[in-house]
């Protein structure tokens, strides 16, 4: 959460918080897909995941396609509920929380970046970035726009503020999506192949920001990536195979 003055200072992210235990923790988390959507047989997406993400940790999740990387990310990001086991955010168990409470936690503490950009086509870049800020409603309207512009500049998009998604390149869209994920200065950033559509330069920019957030600001960053070079820049690499963690780096 950004204190108001950070809306106008050069660095849009608040200082690191004192370490009060791991930010995210999965405990024997299992997700089984059943019912009509999964077909005849229940599908196990991930199984018995024990994983701790500390504050300031920059974590990579890798593994072959279909191994359950995205599924794990959705569980850690409170987008999906584990069928068994538990996911703790800030020490708080989240499995039994209501949908509305989980939505609130996502808004306040988590930022998502998906492989597909998912920008709202009716809104320009600035509006897309400030969406979470306005939903949270902690800043005045003027400060919201200022912070939005600052985030866009941080990602090298100062010229794109008034452009709509269809006027942007794939890489620009993805960076707008990153800026939006950072809008509420979340405690954790969860990114699913965020650099899949970016060139090396832009991919590096995004990773620089993630590294900066983890290193200087104590934010937790979890990135699903296939890119071994980028994965090498992370503090730790978790390898998934068939829905299970086989290596915790």
């Amino acid at each position, binding site marked *: 959460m950004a204190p108001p003055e950070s809306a106008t200072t050069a660095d849009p992210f608040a200082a690191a918080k004192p370490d009060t235990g791991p930010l995210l923790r999965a405990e024997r988390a299992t997700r089984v897909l059943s019912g009509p959507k999964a077909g005849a047989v229940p599908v196990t997406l991930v199984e018995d995941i024990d994983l701790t993400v500390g504050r300031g940790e920059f974590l990579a999740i890798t593994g072959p396609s279909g191994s359950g990387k995205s599924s794990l990310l959705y569980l850690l990001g409170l987008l999906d509920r584990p069928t068994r086991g538990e996911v703790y955010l800030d020490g708080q168990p989240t499995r039994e929380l209501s949908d509305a409470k989980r939505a609130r936690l996502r808004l306040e503490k988590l930022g998502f970046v*998906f492989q*597909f950009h*998912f*920008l709202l086509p009716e809104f320009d870049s600035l509006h897309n970035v400030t*969406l979470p800020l306005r939903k949270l409603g902690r800043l005045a309207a003027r400060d919201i726009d200022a912070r939005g512009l600052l985030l866009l500049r941080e990602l090298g998009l100062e010229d794109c503020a008034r452009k709509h998604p269809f006027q942007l390149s794939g890489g620009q869209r993805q960076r707008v999506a990153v800026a939006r994920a950072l809008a509420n200065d979340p405690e954790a950033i969860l990114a*699913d192949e965020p650099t899949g559509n970016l060139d090396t330069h832009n991919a590096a920019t995004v990773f620089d920001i993630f590294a900066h957030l983890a290193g200087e600001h104590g934010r937790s960053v979890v990135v699903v990536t296939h890119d071994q070079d980028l994965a090498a820049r992370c503090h730790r690499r978790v390898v998934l195979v068939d829905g299970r963690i086989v290596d915790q780096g």
Partner: protein
Amino acid sequence: MNLLVEIALGHLRTRRRQTLVSLTGVALGVGFFVAVAAMMQGFQSYFVAKVIDVSPHILVKDEVRVPPVQPVEAAYPGGAVRLLGLKPEEELRGIKNGLARVAELDRLEGVAAAPVLSGQMILRYGSRDVSAQILGIEPEGQRRVSNLERDMTAGELDDLFATANGIVLGAGLAERLGAERGDTVTALSTAGVVMNMKVVGLYETGITEMDNAQSYALLKKVQVLEDRPNVVDQIRLRLADVDRAEGLARRIEQRFGYRTESWQEQNQNVLGLFVVQNAIMYSTTGAILVVAAFGIFNIVSTVVLEKVRDIAILKSLGFDSRDVERVFVMEGLLVGLAGMLVGWGLGWLLIELLASVRFDIEGFVKSEGFKLNRSFLNYALAGAAAVVAATLAAWLPARKAARVDPVEIVRGAA
């Protein structure tokens, strides 16, 4: 601007034409309701005002509502009694002690009463025969129970005393006869009495049914014409407060035993017609709104399908199901509100247009142009119906949107 409203407007902008069509539908529903309701209510209240103005508020007739109980039926109450070949007695009709009862009613607070003898006759003038009703009145009493004198377009009520056999004709009746004031017409009653009568006056109430068929003469003369000396078959009452009519009529009927009709009962065929008319109006304009609501349902359903990704992203960003539901309900609400405002304008325009039309109609009442009721209530009612229908129509797909599982969508799109 509110964030959810902004998102909703963004969605509607992507379906501009459909939105416009639905908005027009809502506007037409509201506009037509306002205009048609103004026209019908205007006419109806004009008619009621006219009726209250010209016809008796309460009419006591020399009839009984229920046939008298036969002695055998009284002897076996509840028994399966069937009477064959029962012939009604030829009673001497008329209200017994009519004048005394008039006096009694007249003494009541806020009530004026006058005796009448009514009869059917044929009026003949030249080669024309017109059947008409004749009412025998006492001008003194009649003045207090009707506005007949005010409605007279020629002559005065007291002129009835000035000639041997004076008659006052309704304007329409005189026209059909081709007679004018001063002419002598021949009256032929159902009792077989023929009487030459001089037209001493004409009246016009505006109620076609009366003006075309009713005439007035002195009570005594009508008693001669109908061969019913000293008989009174109606008591006409006028009330200070017309809303008391129904209650008072029931009490009088109970006391006297004679069929007593309030003005509502006397005009129940027309008033009943109004009920049907209103039902048609409400269902027609309601149908327009329903069609418009289907349009809104259609738009919002389409948008929900189209924007399922946006819904997923909103949810992943931290919007909860209720926020999502509100966005889509808002879309219906916005179309409803906009349609309401445009519809109000349209309704107002239509009313002004109707008001400027001039013509002569001769239905139940005579009128030159539409009588319009420009009631604020109609605007409120139509607006409320539009907004409620639009919101409900959007609410169904909105609930579906609220249930979208973001994981399913995000997984599918990646």
